């Protein structure tokens, strides 16, 4: 059995001011647009201007969020970098393809080519932090962060004295959202943040962000919480059974949970999955949503973990995130369950 990993620091760039000290979702930034770009912190606080100029948004966000996590954990070096990204450095990928088309394969600018890969953020982190150790990026659609998390659990089981920088990052492209729109992914009617979750309209609000954590197998006074287990499944016929079996395998009953975090995003086509769970398996638990405030992207589930750690720390669930009126005396153990467009289901069990 894999041992839990302890999280000692976290950093989050999103469409809410999550990078500001003390911010904890009690007040939300509203938007009436789709897609919604992430708020920009003062990147120069952590990134030298000469490096910053060539970095795309994924790299900037990842580096800034990582530095926040390291600062919170009180460390200056790490042994490994493990990231997840559904679509990688999308803007540079688009630029590269557009140049390729416009120039018919000649005179291609090197920067978008070099920076168009999914693992560019992890590479930039390693370069910036001088980390020559294990460096891995997982590209598994909406389970990319969960795959990175699972690898972190395995890596730290094999390297118990090491410290891992773990995270998820995804950026919006300039052209790709137009393709998403054609594919029917994006919400038009009622496209707003916070997204009404009782809405009956289809589509999601596309967004972007980067969320990073410092993880190890050592508990310390800095520890924010521990991840006990994670599981992913591309297709699930019966989500309540999938979750119940996961809990059983990990020796936890729903009674032993203090809250559940669900990935409702206002897409009427798929939010029924969460409603069913809320009415059955999790009826007696505080139910917490997060995507209605942060939008949807492949690695947004990492923000759920960021939020859970915040809930442990504050011992309080912000009213803006609560889906029901149930309260809990303590907030020590929380389950995260998400899926996207009916696929890429995942469960993460987190404990204080």
């Amino acid at each position, binding site marked *: 059995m894999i041992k839990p990993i302890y999280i000692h620091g976290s950093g989050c760039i999103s469409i809410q001011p999550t990078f500001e000290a003390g911010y904890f979702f009690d007040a939300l930034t509203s938007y009436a647009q789709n897609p919604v770009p992430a708020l920009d912190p003062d990147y120069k606080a952590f990134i030298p*201007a000469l490096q910053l*100029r060539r970095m795309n948004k994924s790299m900037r966000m990842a580096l800034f969020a990582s530095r926040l996590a390291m600062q919170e954990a009180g460390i200056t070096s790490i042994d490994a970098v493990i990231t997840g990204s559904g679509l990688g450095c999308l803007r540079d990928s688009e630029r590269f393809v557009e140049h390729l088309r416009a*120039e018919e394969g000649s*005179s*291609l*600018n*090197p*920067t978008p080519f*070099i920076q168009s890969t999914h693992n560019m953020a992890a590479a930039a982190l390693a370069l910036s932090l001088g980390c020559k150790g294990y460096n891995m990026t997982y590209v598994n659609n909406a389970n990319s962060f969960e795959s990175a998390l699972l690898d972190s659990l395995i890596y730290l089981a094999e390297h118990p004295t090491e410290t891992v920088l773990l995270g998820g990052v995804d950026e919006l492209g300039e052209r790709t959202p137009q393709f998403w729109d054609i594919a029917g992914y994006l919400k038009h009617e009622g496209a707003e943040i916070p997204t009404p979750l009782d809405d009956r309209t289809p589509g999601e609000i596309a967004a972007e962000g980067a969320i990073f954590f410092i993880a190890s197998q050592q508990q310390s006074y800095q520890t924010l919480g521990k991840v006990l287990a994670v599981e992913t499944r591309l297709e699930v016929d019966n989500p309540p059974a999938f979750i119940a079996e996961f809990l059983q395998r990990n020796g936890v009953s729903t009674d032993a949970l203090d809250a559940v975090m669900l990935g409702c995003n206002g897409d009427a086509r798929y939010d029924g999955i969460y409603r069913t769970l809320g009415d059955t398996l999790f009826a007696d638990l505080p139910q917490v949503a997060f995507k209605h405030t942060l939008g949807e992207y492949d690695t947004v589930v990492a923000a759920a973990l960021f939020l859970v750690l915040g809930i442990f720390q504050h011992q309080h669930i912000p009213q803006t995130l609560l889906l029901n009126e149930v309260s809990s005396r303590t907030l020590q153990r929380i389950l995260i369950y998400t899926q996207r467009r009916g696929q890429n289901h995942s469960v993460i069990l987190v404990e204080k």
Partner: protein
Amino acid sequence: MSELTQELKAKIITQLNLEDLTVDDLDDHTPLFGDGLGLDSIDALELIVMLDKSYGIKLSDPKEGRKVFETVQTMADFIEANRK
């Protein structure tokens, strides 16, 4: 020539994302690499692509680049002598 150096400075700033610089900050004789502007090898590649795209000049000998890209002024001189 002055018009060309001004144009070059604007192109360099845009192409290399030198966000904190304006055309006025960039002197004609400031070294672009090393202790001057501090550009690196990827920037050199970007400048080679820029010469090709904007002025139709292909650098056939990469070693030539060291001399050509020394300053904005040396770039302008090279473009004046070679542009098609």
